[in-house]
């Protein structure tokens, strides 16, 4: 009786041990989430019509700041100058490139008359070009 009970006892003990170990096992599972929605982008404003003035051969241009539809100020403005025929001219001085203020000056060769516009920019975005400024004549 005892002979067969010894190996059987060992087997039984192992079985009980397995039950004790298995019972409190903690299990985790990965969980996946998904969803879809939309990202609404903002809209660039049009530039405000600038005011131009001249003193000798220097023209000064000022304009009002504008903001994106969400209220964020634009990063800068691109200034353009046109001759009487409406042909674009190369601007210089502080009016060249992207102007981050709301005023700029340039020394102009030629008498004009000239008109100016400003176009808001944010990175690669551009707004609509403003209506032209008043015509201004410079003396060079």
């Amino acid at each position, binding site marked *: 009786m005892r002979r067969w*009970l010894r190996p*059987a*006892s060992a*087997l*039984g*003990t*192992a*079985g*009980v*041990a*397995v*039950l004790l*170990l*298995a019972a*409190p*096992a*903690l*299990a*985790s*599972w*990965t*969980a*996946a*989430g*998904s*969803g*879809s*929605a*939309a*990202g*609404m*982008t*903002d*809209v*660039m404003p049009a530039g405000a019509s600038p005011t131009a003035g001249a003193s000798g051969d220097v023209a000064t241009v000022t304009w009002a700041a504008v903001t*994106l*539809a*969400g209220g*964020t100020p634009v990063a800068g403005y691109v200034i353009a100058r046109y001759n009487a025929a409406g042909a674009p001219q190369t601007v210089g001085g502080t009016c060249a490139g992207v102007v981050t203020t709301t005023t700029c000056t340039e020394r102009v060769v030629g008498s004009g008359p000239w008109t100016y516009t400003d176009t808001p920019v*944010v*990175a*690669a*975005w*551009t707004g609509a070009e403003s209506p032209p400024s008043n015509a201004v004549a410079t003396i060079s």
Partner: protein
Amino acid sequence: MPPSASRPWWRRRRFLVVAGVAGLALAVPASVAASVADRTDALSTVAAVSGDNPPAPATTTVEPGATAPAPTAARVRGQAITGSGSSLGDGWAPPRPLRSGFAISGTAHGLYPGAALPLVLTFSNPTARPITVTSVTVTSGAAGSGCPAGLVSSTGLTAYRLVPAHGSVTATIAVTLAEAAPNGCQGAVIPLTYLGTGVTQ
């Protein structure tokens, strides 16, 4: 009288032997069966998506035979490790395959090039177990021909979020529209897709 005759029934050797053998007989196939079932069962979870947009159903489906993502900090103790040949009882195994899903919703507003803006996400847990959300990624599609896909990026979660059973929580991440986003993205509705991972017990 044999010595065991005075012992209570639950201390008798014969009972222990029978109980132990029965325990082995029950535990081994049960563990193996559970593990196999976890690996092969198809799971389909349908959850409602809430947010600023009209609710729409989101479906997460795991096909039979799918494998689990890379293990996270959570581990499983005392499980059978399917396919590895490891034994029962004392091994560490990676988390089991997907057993539940959660929904992610939230709409970004006012995106413009180069700006990191807050996006409030809502995690909704339709299951009866809490879920710890560990990561979220955001991908963007095209909005027409003038606004290509892949222009929106995000920072992801800054901390794990515990979503209670049948509950929801919010988390704020930052999303950015790329500086190179062209003019065609102005006023666009860019489709965003959220993918999250988490752990549940």
